[in-house]
């Protein structure tokens, strides 16, 4: 026993990245001069030295079997000296020093079912979360919706003809594990019914004061149910955030008919041109429609197409909407405007139109 902790390796941190760098990258590290977009999904970075590194970016479902990862490894060995990486949006990038290898690699990737693209003004991969595959908290699935939406938008991944980058993200509940709050289009799972309190287990599994404090609207109150200490929820004060459920398993909100999806638009992260922006509510609710989620797919495709047709070059979704105004966005997309669109949370007042700047 005493010897154990000494031998056990801990706190070594991640492996140093340097040993995973392509020799051309290692040599020209920090000495890149410019890049070119050779084709959708194909980048060429040119170093001060004149050296070039080519990148071929392919789609990934993110949920990868070791089988597929080994296939990627095979391809990397065949064309890239074994060097590859993944991107911040979960695509896989093959790094080549030999331009001649690009086409054969692309061909193999396509044959294996991995489209090449996502660069420049394309729709790149959807950043998403666990959904019904792994999370207890989800109001909807993640991977299935991503698959359905990207099937419909695959041409927008393999072509770069949008006015600007268009980033889609999905989170399966309000915890928003992902950049959902700052995406051009965000797909967000929502509940619409208050927690169904499990009074039987509540006192055992949750601390009541912490639970009460967790509710941002103060909707949870102590209550005695069947002689046991528990809580009650003032239903009108509940806006279904599920923070109570996060701190207390006895407060599930799941509800097959009332859970679903909301769509948010116009967010961005980059500082290019305009400052980073939050996504804003476009569609409050679409029911969960497995397995192919037609409501969500249509809604997203519609917004993408209206944007593609109307925005000017270099205009991200949110920049376009700000130029034309939100009334016009609702008009062009045909999305109905409702009272749900009007903010009523903490900073609501900052969204009221406090000028006469109106388009007629």
């Amino acid at each position: 026993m005493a010897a154990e902790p000494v031998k056990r390796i801990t706190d070594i941190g991640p492996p140093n990245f340097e040993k995973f760098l392509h020799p051309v990258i290692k040599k020209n590290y920090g000495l890149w001069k410019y890049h070119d977009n050779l084709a959708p999904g194909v980048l060429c970075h040119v170093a001060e030295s004149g050296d070039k590194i080519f990148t071929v970016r392919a789609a990934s479902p993110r949920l990868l079997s070791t089988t597929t990862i080994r296939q990627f490894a095979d391809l990397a060995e065949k064309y890239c000296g074994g060097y590859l990486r993944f991107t911040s949006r979960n695509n896989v990038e093959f790094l080549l020093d030999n331009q001649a290898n690009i086409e054969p690699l692309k061909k193999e990737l396509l044959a294996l079912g991995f489209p090449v693209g996502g660069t420049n003004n394309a729709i790149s991969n959807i950043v998403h979360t666990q959904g019904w595959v792994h999370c207890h908290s989800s109001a909807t699935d993640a991977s299935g919706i991503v698959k359905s939406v990207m099937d419909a938008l695959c041409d927008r991944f393999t072509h770069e003809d949008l006015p600007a980058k268009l980033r889609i993200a999905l989170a399966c509940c309000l915890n928003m594990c992902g950049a959902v709050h700052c995406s051009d289009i965000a797909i967000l799972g929502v509940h619409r019914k208050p927690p169904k309190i499990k009074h039987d287990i509540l006192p055992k599994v949750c601390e009541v004061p912490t639970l009460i404090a967790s509710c941002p609207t103060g909707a949870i109150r102590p209550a005695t149910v069947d002689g046991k200490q528990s809580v009650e929820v003032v239903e009108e004060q509940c806006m279904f955030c599920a923070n109570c459920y996060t701190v207390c398993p006895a407060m599930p909100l799941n509800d097959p008919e009332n859970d679903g999806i909301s769509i948010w638009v116009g967010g961005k992260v980059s500082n290019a041109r305009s400052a980073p922006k939050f996504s804003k509510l476009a569609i409050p609710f679409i029911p969960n429609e497995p397995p192919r989620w037609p409501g969500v797919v249509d809604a997203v495709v519609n917004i993408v197409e209206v944007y593609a047709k109307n925005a000017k070059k270099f205009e991200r979704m949110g920049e376009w909407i700000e130029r034309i105004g939100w009334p016009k966005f609702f008009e062009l997309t045909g999305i109905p405007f409702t009272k749900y669109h009007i903010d009523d949370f903490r900073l609501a007042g900052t969204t009221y139109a406090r000028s006469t700047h109106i388009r007629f």
Partner: protein
Amino acid sequence: MADEKVQTKLLDELEKGPWPSFVKEIKKARKVSPVCDDLLGQLELSYEEKVGHWKHGGIVGVMGYGGGVIGRYSDLPEKFPNVAHFHTMRINQPSGWFYTSNALRTLCDIWDRHGSGLTNMHGSTGDIVFLGTKTDELEPCFKELTEAGFDLGGSGSCMRTPSACVGKARCEWACYDTMKMCNDITHQYQDELHRPPFPYKFKFKFSGCPNDCVASIARADLSVIGTWKDDIQQNDAEVAAYAAKGLDVQDDVCGRCPTKCMKWDGKKLTINNRECVRCMHCINAMPKALAPGKERGATLLIGAKAPIVQGALLSSVLVPFVPADELMDTIKELISRVWDFWDEYGKNRERVGELIQRVGMGNFLDAIGLDPVPEMITAPRDNPYIYFKDEA
């Protein structure tokens, strides 16, 4: 119910179409591990019933660590015994998500021995996610991982796995070495990563320039975003070449500059660099002609997070500019003061951004010993409710 012939009528629909299919991936992994059948079974059930079947997590992990594993249990363990436990392990990725084929194979081999054969490459914080294993596989899997040079990432109230954009490895715009910084910070704070010491989670993300390709301003408690102080590097011949090739320099470059600090007379581009806010747009539009200046470093911003509880936050400016070579020291110095203050005053489950909002930026700056500068705000206060102190 390790029935190889599990019915997946609904999920099968998701094998169709041009986009790579996660259902195919799960099916591919069947040969690795029987848990995949039960996963498919339970998922098919969720697809039928429109509701998830996972229970609220439980605390599991490897010895001596307080994080890195997310406990997960099926709420139908009798029906799907192989996913009765279905924990994920978060493995700290190498900076910039660079791998060799060998490294990937090593990871695959370990995971095939101890888990489902399913992964996320990667989780949205940046980790390699090993998706689904049983409690008693955790420690053996961890052992093999560390022996292969990999370690766990974060979960719970700890420093979370930092991540970085590709930066100097393959990007001409990197204003500091994001990947090295990410690697060094991760190694520096191994204890904070593995043994949750804080009121809540704390995330670092490193982007090499204001394009912010790891979304740090939206998703990191400390966002380190490269920038520069001197003039944009400009190659007039290349500008002319872009114009000749059809780029509308007037409308699409100058016209979209947020400060309108560029002039194009049809031949020569003039940038008023004192007015430029380093937004990157003109550089993005003409990468061969323009580049960030030579006096490079980063802006430190603090406090981003998702909406729960008081609404989402973007990070806000903490230090307008730190020269690249002072970055590591400055971050270390500042972060220790920030963490001290947060440890002492942060409430349970209060992110640092929320704490700053609650106590006020002015008091926060006092506490961490930083002078207020107008770059930290978009505008001074408009309400007259000033807490004058005696020194005033």
